[in-house]
């Protein structure tokens, strides 16, 4: 070691993914636009209960009315038969023009059911809006309503075993946990796919190929969670390439969550064991991932109905410590990608790594006993 000095705690570190046996999971359920909240603070809800609803504005139809009638835009109001706000049926005449004792006649008919939203004297357009589209929002997790956001939604707290993934595709789903492999190092293979997977959250070990994922989807699995997949297989599975990590809205009937990263990587034992002890229980899960602009990681929530969520501390009350000698970490970049380790030393001085870059480093001890130096940015805090 070139440095004997060590900082008290490191500043450049990446917070790890949350893996927790008992966790107060808090979910904000928010309508896309203001609407009506249907539950009260303190209510107990199940995951399928509707907690809020609203009406999305209907689509609009723009009619170039002045042009159809052959009049100037500013003259349009003279020929309009309906008022702004008035309902119309498809085919109703909403404006008409007659000249030469009715020999010249033109009409504007409503193309849809709806109401007149706007009549413009500047552009000569009439805008008809279709009826509103009702939208209902479910609770997604069972729990207690702890906050009402007036006209917007609710906050629900749920006592749960909680596992955060690193990347996912597919949206919110529910299903019983089925562990399909014996060890976190095992791959999910084609011969393991079974009709029993239907409606389940299938837990694999280190890897699943595009073929396995496709077959799981055909069988009707609600979700698959594995340590890693090949990024290329995501394209083969979805039929298109993902450019930026904003996912969750894919049009697929199954959700995929990876817990470690891309490639063949055994699922962390602690994560795997949490699935194992909860086999057969309900999981609420979501593959939605967003890496920038307010990070969203995929989540697996296993509700614990034996615990009152209000008796658990909130996330903001849980101490997020820095890195110190002894802190458990996971390496998140080559050449030790995926390996678990303990911090040995945190030298302050920059050190050269193989690339010849001077970087802040951390000395770690891998599980096989080797002591190695890696950039501090390449480890994340991880309880194993």
């Amino acid at each position: 070691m070139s440095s004997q000095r060590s900082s008290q705690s490191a500043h450049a570190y990446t917070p790890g993914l949350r893996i927790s046996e008992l966790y107060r999971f808090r979910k904000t359920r928010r309508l896309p636009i203001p609407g009506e909240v249907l539950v009260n603070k303190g209510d107990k809800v199940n995951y399928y209960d509707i907690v809020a609803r609203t009406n999305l504005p209907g689509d609009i139809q723009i009619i170039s009315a002045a042009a159809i009638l052959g009049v100037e835009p500013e003259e349009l109001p003279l020929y309009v038969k309906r008022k702004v706000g008035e309902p119309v049926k498809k085919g109703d005449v909403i404006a008409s023009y007659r000249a030469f004792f009715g020999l010249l006649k033109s009409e504007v008919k409503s193309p849809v059911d709806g109401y007149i939203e706007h009549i413009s004297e500047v552009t000569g357009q009439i805008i008809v809006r279709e009826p509103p589209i009702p939208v209902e929002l479910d609770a997604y997790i069972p729990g207690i309503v702890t906050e009402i956001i007036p006209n917007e939604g609710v906050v629900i707290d749920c006592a749960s075993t909680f596992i955060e993934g690193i990347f996912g595709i597919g949206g919110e789903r529910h299903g019983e946990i089925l562990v399909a492999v014996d060890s976190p190092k095992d791959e999910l293979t084609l011969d393991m796919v079974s009709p029993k997977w239907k409606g389940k959250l299938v837990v694999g070990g280190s890897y699943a190929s595009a073929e396995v994922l496709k077959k799981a989807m055909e069988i009707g699995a609600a979700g698959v969670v594995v340590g890693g997949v090949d990024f290329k297989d995501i394209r083969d599975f979805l039929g298109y390439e993902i450019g930026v990590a904003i996912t969750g809205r894919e049009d697929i009937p199954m959700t995929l969550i990876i817990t470690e990263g891309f490639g063949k990587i055994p699922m962390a034992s602690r994560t795997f064991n949490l699935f194992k002890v909860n086999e057969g229980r309900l999981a609420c899960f979501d593959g939605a991932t967003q890496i920038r602009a307010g990070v969203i990681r995929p989540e697996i929530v296993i509700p614990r109905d034996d615990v009152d969520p209000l008796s658990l501390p909130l996330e903001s009350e849980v101490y997020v410590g820095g890195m110190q000698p002894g802190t458990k970490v996971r390496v998140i970049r080559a050449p030790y990608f995926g390996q678990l380790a303990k911090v040995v030393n945190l030298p302050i001085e920059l050190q050269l790594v193989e690339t010849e870059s001077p970087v802040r480093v951390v000395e770690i001890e891998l599980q096989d006993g080797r002591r190695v130096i890696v950039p501090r940015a390449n480890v994340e805090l991880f309880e194993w």
Partner: protein
Amino acid sequence: MSVKVMKFDVEKMQVALATDVGSTTTKARLFKKVDGVWRFICAGEAPTTVEKPFEDVTMGLRNAITEVEELTGHKLLKSDGSGLIIPYQGNNVGVDLYVSTSSAGGGLQMMVAGVVKTMTAESAERAALGAGAIVMDVMAIDDGRPPHKKIERMRFLRPDMILLAGGTDGGTVKHVVEMAELIKAAEPKPRFGLGYKLPIVYAGNRDAREHIKKTLGEAFDLTIVENIRPVLEIEVVEPARDAIHRLFMEHVMAHAPGYHKLTEWVMVPVMPTPAGEGMMFRTIAKMWNINVLGVGLGGATTNVYSVYEGKFVRTVSANLGMSYSITNVLKEAGVANIMRWLPFEMDEREVRNRLANKMIRPTTLPQTLDDLLVEHAVAREAIRLGFEHHKLLARGLRGVQRKRTIADIFEQSMETETYINMMNIQLIGGTGGLLSHTPRRQQAALILIDAFQPKGVTRLMCDSIFMMPHLGVLSTVHPKAAMEIFERDCIVKLGTVIALDGHAKSPGPAVKVTAHMPDGRTVEKVVNYGDIDRIPLRDDETATVVIEPTGDFDVGMGPGKKREATVWGGAAGIVIDARGRPLRLPEDFRQRREALLKWFRALNAYPEIIMSKEKI
């Protein structure tokens, strides 16, 4: 919230701190007046904490600033965590000025609307980009999408702000009002919640203002500024750009999660990072009276700047970057185009997995040389694609009537080609984490050469440790300090590239370069077609060169014509690039590997240890 307006006595200032809250990393830079001259003192960096569980950018800021404190012994932060110690108290305690730029949380995301796609909509796009925004979509009456598709798109986008332009003053108001009616019908919602009205800047036909107020005034936070195209021949972007900057601070920063405390810490409004960067590239072009191309290669975006014959254009490729958007570079460029820059064989699956792993863990750094080369390969492709995009906007005003040269006939000009002629670019500059932090500066030089493919004689520079945005925002308060630091500590001269345009029909000598060195020596190099060679020249030295290309090649004076020039030195020295333009890489892997190794070795760009690896 209101924007703080403070008065500063810049002459009395001794210490300044500038930060940039990037999408991946928060960077702090400490500046001090030393013997009457402003100098850069120290840098600190830490992961940005805009994300959960922190959702408070000041945590990352404190980490970055603490690193500066640890490395310098200069105390900057108040012990109660409420901000900086202001002003400087003497004895290495406190700062006189604290400023910041920001691109985290997605930066400033705008939707732009105009009437004619290639005229007012394009001008509005240039104005929004010049203000440092990411343009999510450009809507125009004639963009080929039916109204309901436009509305669907507007609803989906959730921009931070909309810029609406259209029509010349005194012209028809119909079309721009039509666009306003569409916006009203779509009711787009701001990105950060439902609690405030979406800001719209109107910079269109003056005569339509009353109609616009009537249509949009109630549902949106409407700001009206001067028309961006008062007449077809003129584009006035400044009023729109200023309004965008003001609204960025007042609305976007005030509502973005985790930003509230930062707006209280700073002493002048937070500026979008690209606006700070752009300000410095313009300063270089003005200071030396040259045409400049610049690139800010970030984690999420690639910004390309050009100052060409006085015209400043910035473009941002929102989804081309080195971390968050790295897999989008893969998608846009294709895996083969990335792998063509690697001198070793690597399984395509492995390349894709490595890039995807960088995307999901964007703050990690390459530790191994093969990982570094993969990132440098992506950097070349991101800049290449970003520059392609830039050329689409760096073109003359369209819709302007021009006189034909052969007859007295008027025609609608179709300015489809960029006005940027690479032969007339005197300087290419790079900034952003990757370019500023290449372990050997020659790597940055080669990345810029391969990506931009300069022609003729072009100087190369990069930002020493990524501080151009910091100096840009500093210059709004203390321009003298910003310039002093820029010249002494920010610019890193990489060298000068002499590049041949054209290709030869057969191998053999392509150019002779005679350099008259500062120590009186004369160095002569004959470089073969397909090769790179260099003449070492220090960064504080200049030399005069005589370039004599063969008949197949042009260096700015015409095919086979001799050219003389003064060049500056740097880490790469005088680089003679006889590979020809456009650059062609051999299709066959073995031949390509040989060529790449030859070029890398010519610049001593990478350690030999990686050159011997044929397969990873």
